[in-house]
């Protein structure tokens, strides 16, 4: 695997392979000194053209725990402000000697475009409304460990609730969850759903209450306040009343059901209950697993030798 651009490029076996690799990283992260020399001498550049604290910090931590060197490139302090083009930025940093770019950009497709201008591996850390593949992987890993489903999600019922239309997390999660065999329902007001979901392998509902008792996972999306300005929902209170996870709704969930959120969450809006008091909340596990999943992705791209023929594993190795 050279790049991770789109979770749709991975089939179920490839996703499970990365999740298996994540088990190794979780073991490393549990140690008193969570660091291994696996990517010594490799350089990873975090190139974030859009604000992000948790994803950038998570990738940063992941690279360091594998002993890679990390360059953080923040757009606010870069020559992008002097009018440097994306291509020149990439070519300039590539000339310094780089093994991987971790890219977040507000334009869908930017990470794919970048692959043309560098020989380094590209990891998509979120592009526009399009994709956020490592979020999908960490969500899969969190469900797999919390519900003990090591090989797949056959029969699991997952609801993704909220602003699906503008959410790259929802797009990536739908692909990953369904690839692993889960049954996914999108729950949102019509204004927050994509205009056409007929090509999506999902059901669509506007009624969260009807679904609640049968769900294995409730995945709440962040209600972005700028959607209010665009008048896509009447008011945040109205949204919470119909789609928020309130204490009343939480009480109707199955005892084993998980509550997930990609963060940062709006307390009192989509998360109208304290997640610390929800037995099924795995929001913090998602963050913890994010580091391990990103370690697995970086190792797979830069260190695993997975593109090599399998017979290097035999005793004939020199």
């Amino acid at each position, binding site marked *: 695997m050279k790049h991770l651009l789109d979770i749709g490029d991975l089939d179920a076996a490839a996703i499970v*392979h990365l999740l*298996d*690799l994540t*088990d*190794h990283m979780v*073991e*490393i992260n549990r*140690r008193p*000194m969570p*660091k*291994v*020399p*696996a*990517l010594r001498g490799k350089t990873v550049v975090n190139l974030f053209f859009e604000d992000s604290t948790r994803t950038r910090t998570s990738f940063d931590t992941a690279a360091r725990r*594998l002993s890679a060197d990390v360059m953080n490139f923040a757009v606010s302090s870069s020559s992008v402000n002097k009018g440097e083009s994306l291509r020149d930025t990439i070519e300039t940093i590539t000339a310094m000697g780089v093994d991987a770019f971790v890219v977040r950009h507000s334009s869908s497709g930017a990470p794919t475009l970048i692959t043309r201008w560098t020989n380094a591996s590209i990891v998509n850390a979120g592009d526009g409304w399009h994709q956020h593949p490592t979020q999908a992987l960490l969500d899969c890993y969190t469900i797999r460990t919390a519900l003990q489903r090591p090989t797949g999600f056959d029969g699991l019922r997952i609801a993704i609730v909220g602003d699906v239309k503008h959410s790259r997390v929802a797009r990536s999660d739908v692909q990953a969850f369904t690839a692993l065999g889960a049954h996914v329902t999108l729950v949102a007001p019509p204004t927050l759903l994509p205009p056409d979901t007929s090509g999506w392998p999902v059901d669509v509902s506007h009624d969260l209450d009807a679904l609640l008792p049968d769900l294995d996972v409730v995945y709440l999306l962040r209600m972005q306040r700028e959607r209010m300005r665009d008048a896509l929902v009447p008011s945040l209170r109205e949204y919470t009343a119909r789609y928020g996870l309130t204490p009343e709704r939480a009480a109707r969930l199955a005892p084993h059901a998980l509550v997930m959120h990609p963060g940062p969450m709006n307390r009192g809006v989509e998360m109208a209950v304290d997640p610390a008091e929800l037995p099924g909340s795995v929001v913090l596990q998602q963050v913890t697993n994010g580091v391990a999943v990103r370690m697995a992705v970086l*190792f797979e791209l*830069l*260190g*695993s*030798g*997975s593109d*090599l023929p*399998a017979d*290097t*594993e*035999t*005793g*004939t*190795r*020199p």
Partner: protein
Amino acid sequence: MTSSGTPGTPSTPPGRTVMSADDVRRAITRIGHEIVERNHGVDGVVLVGLQRGGVWIARQLAGSMAAIDGVGEVPVGTLDVSFYRDDVGIRPIVPGSVTDLPRSLDGAHVVLVDDVLFTGRTVRAALDALNDHGRPRTVQLAVIVDRGHRELPIRPDYVGKNLPTSRSEDVRVTAEGVRLA
């Protein structure tokens, strides 16, 4: 980890048998006795099988040591050295072989267990990996087959069989025996 095998693999690999199933079993029993003798019992002894070829051997070793008079349970762990190799990126990693140690290794007498000792690079990586799990009092090495061709100053403490090989040959150790191809 220069060759791998699991007990019960229902295949007939090519090559010739150099140790029978009984030979392997007896070698493991003898090594168990040698470990008990060298360490004056099993106090502080931890068997650590190297993923993946050494894991089943470490478990059998623990089983046969438990049968020795006056010797209690010996803790067994597994060690994955993939992230410590000097050839990271040259060999594919096999997921599902996660490190799992039963206790801190501080002050322990660690016996690394592997199927085949070849270049010594796996053992070198294992010594680095052990470092990150504590500071053992001693580290010893047990292998079923020492096939020569060392590239590093590493020697085993317990050997099932010294087996002269050429570099291009393949040694496979399973509970059914050792084959050279």
